[in-house]
């Protein structure tokens, strides 16, 4: 039954996940999805990477969602990531001024994605990070991971998650510096160098 009786908690059970399939490309991605940073913001960082399968081949049919705090560590509560145009029915894109903290980018034919966002500030007990959710054809349940940024070794060493991850795999959660405010973060779904994925309880 798919009419849930909320007066009987034992019937409130989760809806199962399914793969996003191959044909979401005309539905979910939107123009400027990865241009999360307001135009000209001094705390802008550029992220790029590949999504790779168990044989090291890039995925041309994956997308990632990024979600992070602003540079002060505050959670954005601003809508407008995918502003629509009521006249044409098309997308207007972001307004270039407000920071929603969330973006969606699909991999290109080479399995490569890029995004521009703001450097996240620290919150709670954690070192600064961006939350990442990965979707792809073939992936029956999306995968969560995190992008930590290199540089502040003390803060990374004190992070409760990084402290629990095996030394050998810890690096998969930390982006590689590729220039001023530019980072690379590859996501390996399986095999050698497999990215650390997270579950929340």
């Amino acid at each position, binding site marked *: 039954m*798919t009419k*849930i009786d*909320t007066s009987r908690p034992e019937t409130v059970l989760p809806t199962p996940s*399914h793969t996003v399939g191959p044909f979401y490309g005309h539905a979910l991605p939107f123009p400027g999805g990865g241009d999360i940073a307001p135009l000209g913001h001094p705390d802008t960082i550029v992220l790029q990477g590949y999504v790779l399968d168990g044989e090291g081949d890039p995925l041309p049919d994956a997308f990632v969602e990024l979600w992070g705090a602003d540079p002060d560590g505050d959670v954005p509560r601003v809508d407008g990531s995918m502003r629509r145009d009521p006249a044409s029915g098309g997308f207007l894109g972001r307004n270039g001024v407000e920071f929603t903290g969330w973006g969606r980018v699909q991999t290109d034919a080479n399995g490569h994605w890029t995004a521009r966002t703001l450097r996240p500030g620290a919150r*709670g007990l954690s070192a600064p990070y961006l939350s990442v959710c990965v979707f792809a054809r073939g992936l029956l349940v999306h995968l969560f991971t995190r992008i930590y940024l290199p540089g502040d070794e003390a803060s990374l060493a004190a992070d409760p998650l990084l402290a629990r*991850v095996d030394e050998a795999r810890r690096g998969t959660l930390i982006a590689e510096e590729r220039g001023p405010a530019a980072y690379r973060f590859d996501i390996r779904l399986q095999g050698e160098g497999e990215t650390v994925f997270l579950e929340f309880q």
Partner: protein
Amino acid sequence: MTLTQHDIDLEIAAERAAYEKRLADGAPVEHQPRRDYAPYRSSVLRHPKQPPVSIDVSKDPELVELHSPAFGERDITEIDNDLTRQHTGEPIGERITVEGRLLDRDGRPIRGQLVEIWQANSAGRYAHQREQHDAPLDPNFTGVGRTLTDDSGFYRFTTIQPGPYPWRQHVNAWRPAHIHFSVFGTAFTQRLVTQMYFPSDPLFPYDPIIQSVTDDAARQRLVATYDHSLSVPEFSMGYHWDIVLDGPHATWIEEGR
């Protein structure tokens, strides 16, 4: 060697037997598919082999994953939830209305959140460039919609009954008719992408994607209910489908953003 439906049927039966054995051995009910489900071949190289690292969200209420991105009236247009009105002409097919509530694991409505859908047209073809199925495109149907849930957590779409379609994983592989859903909760941990099916579809036993949910009751939760009260006189057939988001959320943060 050519992969046949019979080969896939045997694999589906083996996966089901393995799940029943796990249950009999005292393992918990599996509400979600396993990412490693070989009858769906695309999963083979795309699932992690290492177990996920578990994060106990009660230890740090400041995790950004306990919050969700916000969406608002700017992110949708008034007719984005009516897939039959996006072109100058009427799409071909049986009009349907699909309605349901977006709930958390406590049965509380999730208000003002984004629900996105996409689907094939009535002939079983997606308006996607890489779609190879030789069925007609409908110039009056794109098959993409979005809406925000209302104050009681309800979403509502008007669309066209999608057709089943072949997908070439194996000889004579057909997907049961479905609508793809992408939804957000009050926490990013609740993010969900899934597919809604229609009652009594004869293709269910043959489809490794719906069968990846090996638990019978969980699989039933992917199937909408025909609801005559949602059928619109002289216009459409009505289906009801509630969505319950898994994943922990912070009960102390404000609701109804």
